């Protein structure tokens, strides 16, 4: 078992910078999720760790060894691919045994280990089949089996669940997490699905444009997004952002349609900053929708309502922009009706309107 560390990784494809001096540490035995929109460099980072791409600059350490010059077949890592990359000409057994055979392990042991792995993943019945005779979920398991059978130092998973249907995906991610905890192998998991990232990660790394935006435990990233991008990317539906002007004397925020008190923990920062505009961020689940006016409530027009079973997602027009809110189903406003929004000061996020960085709190 070993941790993985990358230092100042730089990767350029022609003029395009895919990774811009990324430094990160993946702790031993933890499941780290790299998350970000497509093209953010997360897969590139994974492939550089695997050795499938050469970095333009910087270094990669597995354990304490710098592995820049080590080809993939000599790094003790396992990787699960989005497409599963099962060898179509081999049976399930051969697919799982393939990495073992690379290491010249005795036949008996190969057999024993493959069967053990297959049993662990519920593949015992399928060992003699060819990949094309398997369902998506089964193929996924085989790919996993191929990764775990050889007891690597590191697992690399490149969107391993994205080819599965929604229900299976939810099942598999729990299973995968459980498996990782059982095996205790350092795992780097790449996904673009923030829900998957939140549920699985021991540690979350949010990336954009080849730069790490924020890393930390999922709850921390959720509750303290470092900038508007992280705030918007983590959490579903996305955080609402409203541009406000600041009245420092009154400690008030003025949106086009409404005004509200600045949360007290930000007052100091606002004052120190001395700029007159700020971005207010509120998560839909923190917005409260009222049918009638209350003190401090903001008026909004219902744009569309989407029932989701136990809750309802309401899109409202407020201050010339659209905002989303989650409400209990007992409130059923019609389209075009006016509703009133309030929010808890404690749940409000403020971001610098120029840098998009979160304002510091006291």
């Amino acid at each position, binding site marked *: 078992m070993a941790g993985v560390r990358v230092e100042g990784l730089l990767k350029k494809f022609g003029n395009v910078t895919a990774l811009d001096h990324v430094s990160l540490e993946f702790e031993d035995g933890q499941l780290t999720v790299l998350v970000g929109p497509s093209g953010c460099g997360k897969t590139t980072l994974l492939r550089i760790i695997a050795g499938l791409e050469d970095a333009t600059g910087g270094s990669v350490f597995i354990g304490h060894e710098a592995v820049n010059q080590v080809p993939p077949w000599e790094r003790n890592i396992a990787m699960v691919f989005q497409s599963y*990359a099962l*060898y179509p000409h081999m049976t399930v057994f051969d697919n799982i045994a393939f990495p073992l055979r*690379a*290491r010249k392990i005795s036949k008996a042991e190969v057999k024993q280990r493959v069967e053990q792995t297959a049993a662990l993943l519920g593949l015992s019945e399928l060992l003699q089949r060819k990949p094309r005779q398997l369902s998506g979920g089964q193929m996924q398991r085989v790919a996993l089996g191929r990764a775990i059978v050889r007891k690597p130092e590191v697992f690399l998973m490149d969107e391993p669940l994205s080819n599965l249907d929604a229900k299976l995906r939810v099942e598999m991610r729990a299973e995968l997490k459980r498996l990782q905890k059982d095996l205790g192998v350092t795992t780097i998991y790449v996904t673009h699905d923030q829900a998957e990232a939140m549920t699985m990660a021991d540690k979350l790394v949010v990336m954009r444009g080849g730069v790490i935006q924020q890393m930390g435990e999922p709850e921390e990233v959720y509750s303290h997004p470092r900038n508007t991008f992280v705030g918007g990317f983590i959490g579903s539906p996305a955080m609402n952002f409203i541009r406000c002007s600041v009245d420092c004397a009154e400690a008030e925020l003025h949106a086009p349609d409404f005004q509200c008190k600045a949360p007290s923990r930000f007052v100091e920062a606002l004052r120190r900053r001395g700029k007159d505009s700020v971005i207010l961020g509120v998560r839909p689940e923190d917005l409260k929708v009222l049918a009638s006016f209350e003190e401090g409530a903001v008026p909004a027009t219902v744009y569309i309502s989407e029932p989701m079973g136990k809750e309802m997602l309401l899109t409202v027009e407020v201050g010339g922009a659209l905002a989303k809110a989650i409400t209990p189903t007992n409130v059923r406003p019609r389209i075009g009706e006016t509703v009133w929004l309030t929010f808890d000061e404690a749940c409000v996020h403020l971001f610098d309107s120029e840098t998009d960085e979160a304002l510091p709190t006291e």
Partner: protein
Amino acid sequence: MSAKLSHRYRTQYTYLMQTVVTILIAVFCLTPMFYILSTSLKPRGAEYMIPLELWPSKPTLQAYRAVLGIVEEAELASESKGSMVLPADQARIVKSLSFVTPLRNSLIVSSAVAAFSLLISSLSAYAIARLRFRYKIQSLIFLQLGAMIPIAVTIAPTFMLMRSLGLLRTLLAMIIPNIFYNVPMSTWLIACYFAELPFDLEDAAKVDGYKPIQIFWKVIIPLAAPGLFSAGVFAFLGSWGEFMLASAVSMGIPAVQTVPAAMLNFSVQFRYEWTWISAAIILSVALVAFMTLVFQRWVIRGLTAGAVKY
């Protein structure tokens, strides 16, 4: 009711049309070979009888025995058009021109050519389709442009080259150039097939602990089997039918002649013995035809992968 009837009528009509089309194509493609086969089964001299028999009333394998050199003097005694050669002499000549040797030579040459050109061109195809390097297109064009050069251009220098290597009158003088006559085409066919394989497979094998050369053998080659087969059949057929070089470097020596060169020799020697020539044709084609029939699905699948899509 009427709709149902007309549907059934149309299905039957379509089926009939399909059968007719199949038969027409079969007639077009097979008539010449059929007639050659029928001629080869006629007794000596019967091929000149008018009216022509489309199929011999008494098929005989006499011609095949002659072509394979296992004919007896007595069999040759029967009158043959235009021949003034004594049966004893003819038997000797027939034996000396037995088609067994050319068939064996061709088999050796074509198998070796197919095997080695596959080996060489799968390596180069791998480089072109799956490795990163500069001047890739240029490399491919360099190979392909070579294949455009007519053999009439290269035959004389090649002959001189084989001479200076001391390979004239050996099968190697046919094998070595033929390997490279087939490399450009094979490279192209195989490269197109390689290009279709997902790159993840290779990456997966790399992290599974295999070196590129092992990946090449264990993953890429088995997966590209149809493409390789296509290319192999192309190379086999190409060298099986190669005539100009074979006839130049064999220098007329029957012991090292391949089928095409021997065929010409044979047809010159027995200009009127069309039953024999037909039997020789059938023997020269039978093996390759059989082989291609067995593998035809793979041949076509190999081409499907992209070689012809560009």
